[in-house]
């Protein structure tokens, strides 16, 4: 795709970006421009600041510059260490999220707060927790304790690794990446990347994989499973998306961040009759909650709460002048929000002791007093309605889609095409048959963030459309999901983008061609789905005609996700090169040689059309090997 020079393919974003320019308000794009040219050493991963002798940098462009750090670390070592630390940080973010959810489950004292009892008991069974004679709260406590044990247990591997196909488990054991406790693996990355420790780039990456695995098959999976238990397993529902979901006459509350414990409480509090009444007294028609980024995904998946926008729209939401409060917890919250909110009446409310922002109002969230605190926060927003100043400018842009495709929902949907006289229900057989017969060529997960190095949303959307027309089913999470729903790819109308095979599948199953599977921790749902399909065909995840893509990734979490996907046997296409290009060895290892070890590898391709071609070729290749 030719870069048209646009910053975004999203009309609402374009409109508000223009408004920001006119009003002289600085946004992420302006700061990115001011940063150019970005440092080549950092970009290539060749800068090391791991000790007081540094900073060191390796010079690649001429032979005269330093070819090793002061300690003697080579480019391979430095690049691998930097990459590993990024992965560890990403894994830490997801895992700490999982830990908080586990703690929330642990503190549940009332059965009514468990929304999916069946899932709780299933997990208890999976983990060998006896449930006989115990009440739900007791079982929840024991499951939570077991989950919390995953973070720091002294012996044994991650429990969820057992969910993988047998061949994969064996491979992990043989290659030494069957991770142990979550925190331990992350600490080990930090240890081995300390000055004078691990200098073997392959060994450093192996440890990075162990840490990444504690994300996908550890922290993220715990986060997802336990969130479902606490707040309900998502089922298909309609949702509206984009900044047009903000309502001029209402108190608008945007919840932004990641952990559903906070946003769930806000959703409940915003429906409190007392607060609704208060909002009316302030001259508003009511309270409108909208979600942003992954917390937006969480409440949309479970309650159909409108999705206000993704990562690059957080600043723009405030520029509508209609947001009374932006409530944030952790991860991917731009500190610039504090500056931008000052230009409007919007209150930026931080809630986590792990993520404070100077200039924001901090109201600390506590799971045990969640409703009280949520009410206090919502009240702050309501009382702020009358402080609106200037003109409200909400772009008239929103689209509708169907979301809520948890693994459970997908399997239930697949039952629609089973014949009760010929087939079992509750399995992935219809999906496997559709793929084996060739009606679907394969499936691709489009995940990841927004990044100024790619036009906003455009790569997500272009890639998705290119895949749909090739009869490749798309599942998505995170900000990729926001991009797809905004572009209308989760509506029935999106069948027009599909090849005949995929369109037929969508019609029979009554699904959109792009399935929203949740937030970034919910990528763990995709891992379980892949495992189920691989087990059904008696193979490994690496045998499947599938791929993953992060066309606009930016965060360390995305790097951790990419690496655990590769280690799980998945071909992962990145639209932005990670900072590994300074070492040919590391780059070659990650994009080529690693495939012979794990069956998955990274591919770098910034053009979404070419990316689709590469993915389709990969999928057809896998099909050939399967003889289908």
């Amino acid at each position: 795709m030719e870069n048209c020079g646009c910053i975004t393919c999203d009309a609402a974003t374009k409109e508000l970006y223009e408004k920001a320019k006119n009003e002289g308000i600085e946004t992420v794009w302006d700061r990115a421009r001011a940063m150019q040219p970005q440092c080549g050493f950092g970009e290539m991963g060749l800068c090391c600041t791991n000790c007081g002798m540094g900073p060191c940098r390796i010079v690649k462009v001429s032979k005269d510059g330093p070819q090793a750090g002061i300690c003697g670390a080579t480019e391979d070592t430095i690049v691998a260490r930097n990459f590993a630390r990024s992965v560890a940080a990403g894994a830490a973010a997801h895992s700490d999220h999982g830990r908080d959810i586990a703690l929330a489950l642990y503190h549940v004292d009332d059965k009514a707060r468990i929304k999916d009892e069946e899932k709780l008991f299933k997990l208890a069974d999976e983990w060998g927790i006896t449930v006989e004679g115990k009440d739900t709260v007791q079982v929840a406590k024991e499951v939570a304790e077991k989950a919390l044990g995953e973070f720091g247990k002294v012996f044994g591997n991650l429990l969820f690794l057992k969910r993988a196909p047998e061949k994969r488990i064996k491979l992990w054991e043989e290659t030494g990446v069957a991770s142990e406790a979550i925190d331990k693996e992350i600490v080990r990355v930090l240890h081995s990347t300390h000055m004078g420790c691990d200098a073997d780039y392959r060994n450093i990456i192996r440890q990075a994989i162990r840490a990444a695995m504690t994300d996908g098959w550890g922290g993220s999976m715990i986060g997802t499973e336990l969130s479902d238990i606490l707040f309900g397993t998502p089922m298909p529902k309609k949702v509206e998306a984009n900044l047009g979901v903000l309502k001029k006459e209402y108190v608008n509350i945007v919840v932004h961040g990641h952990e559903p414990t906070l946003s769930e409480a806000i959703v409940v509090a915003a429906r409190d009759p007392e607060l609704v009444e208060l909002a009316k007294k302030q001259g508003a028609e009511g309270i409108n909650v909208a979600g942003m980024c992954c917390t937006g995904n969480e409440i949309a998946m479970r309650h159909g709460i409108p999705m206000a926008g993704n990562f690059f729209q957080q600043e723009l939401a405030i520029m509508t002048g209609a947001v009374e409060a932006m409530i944030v917890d952790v991860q991917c919250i731009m500190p610039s929000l504090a500056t931008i909110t000052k230009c409007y009446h919007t209150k930026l409310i931080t809630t986590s002791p792990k993520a404070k922002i100077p200039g924001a109002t901090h109201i600390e969230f506590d799971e045990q007093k969640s409703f009280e605190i949520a009410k206090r926060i919502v009240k702050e927003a309501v009382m702020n309605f009358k402080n609106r100043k200037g003109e409200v400018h909400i772009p008239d842009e929103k689209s509708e889609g169907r979301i809520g495709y948890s693994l459970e929902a997908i399997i239930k949907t697949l039952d629609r095409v089973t014949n009760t006289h010929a087939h079992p229900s509750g399995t992935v057989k219809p999906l496997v048959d559709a793929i084996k017969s060739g009606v679907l060529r394969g499936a691709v997960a489009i995940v990841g963030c927004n990044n100024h190095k790619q036009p906003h949303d455009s790569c997500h959307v272009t890639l998705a459309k290119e895949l749909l027309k090739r009869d490749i089913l798309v599942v998505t999470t995170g900000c990729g999901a926001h991009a797809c729903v905004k572009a209308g790819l989760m509506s029935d109308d999106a069948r027009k983008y599909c090849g005949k095979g995929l369109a037929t599948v969508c019609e029979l199953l009554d699904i959109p061609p792009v399935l929203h599977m949740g937030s970034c921790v919910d990528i763990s749902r995709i891992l379980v789905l892949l495992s189920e399909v691989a087990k059904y065909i008696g193979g490994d995840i690496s045998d499947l005609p599938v791929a993953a893509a992060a066309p606009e990734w930016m965060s360390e979490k995305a790097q951790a996700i990419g690496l655990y996907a590769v280690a799980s046997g998945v071909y992962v296409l990145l639209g932005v090169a990670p900072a590994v290009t300074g070492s040919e060895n590391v780059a070659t290892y990650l994009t080529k040689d690693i495939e012979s070890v794990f069956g998955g590898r990274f591919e770098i391709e910034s053009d979404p059309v070419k990316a689709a071609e590469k993915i389709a070729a990969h999928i057809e290749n896998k099909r050939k090997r399967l003889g289908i």
Partner: protein
Amino acid sequence: MTLFDIIFTGSKQALEAAKAAVDSAIEKKGSDAKVAFPETAYSLPTIYAATGKKIGNLGELRDVLSIVESLIVPEQNLEKALNAGLATALSAEIIEACKYAVEEKPYSEPCAGFISDAVIRSLGVPLVTGDIPGVAVVIGEAPSVEEAAKIIKNYQNKGLLVCLVGKIIDQAIEGKVKVGLELRVVPLGYDVTSVIHVVTVAIRAALIFGAVPPGNLEELLKYTRERVPAFVNALGPLSELVVSAGAGAIALGFPVITDQDVQEVPHFLITQKDYDKIVPTSLEARGIKIKITEVPIPVGFAAAFEGERVRKED
């Protein structure tokens, strides 16, 4: 071989056979010789509905072969596979048309061959009212005469129109199934290609009752999918040709239920090895719900028996 490759292979075989049939017919009768099915205003209905062209003589029929050929594009996707299935249907019609061009009366008792417009018009109303809840096309050979009779009678009892193609015809007769249009059990012919004579029933239904304009293939397929409650039971070993004909049925929206091991396609291609379940599996696959309650009496009871004649020897 992938499922799609099997379909492409079968479609190419059908095309070759159609070419050979046309060549041989022209050799015998010349390219100006008349081509027509008896008692129809729709020329060669499949070709007419798909292309909008009426075929008058063998020379024109030969020209259709290139259209058929253009439909066979062996790319691995559903669209091309379904097109190849339609190509097989067109080839079958060409082959059958050649039979009628060469012979005075290519079909004889018990086989019906081509079904006239008048019959279709008479079947149209009960199809619309649901009096005929569905059309079962049983093709091939059941493992035994008993199984064959059981399946056919089961459909007959439910009021479905049953069309038979292949050895199942002999099995039906041996199994004492009374056949005939008035009994709604219609043996079409022994060759696989004679299945086209039930396909043209669906196609003419679209032209007559659906007022689908000839040449509008998309609308035709929509009509057959939504309005003609037909399905196929393919019993016994499946050749590539039969599989590609099955793809033609699927293109028309008719699911195929077989007793053979095939790569299943959700909703459209289903394996059912339990012969007692073939009927319920088929009805569910086509979404056919039987309106009448079955009366527990020792003889068959259905509208299908209304036209039955009790002969002296019975």
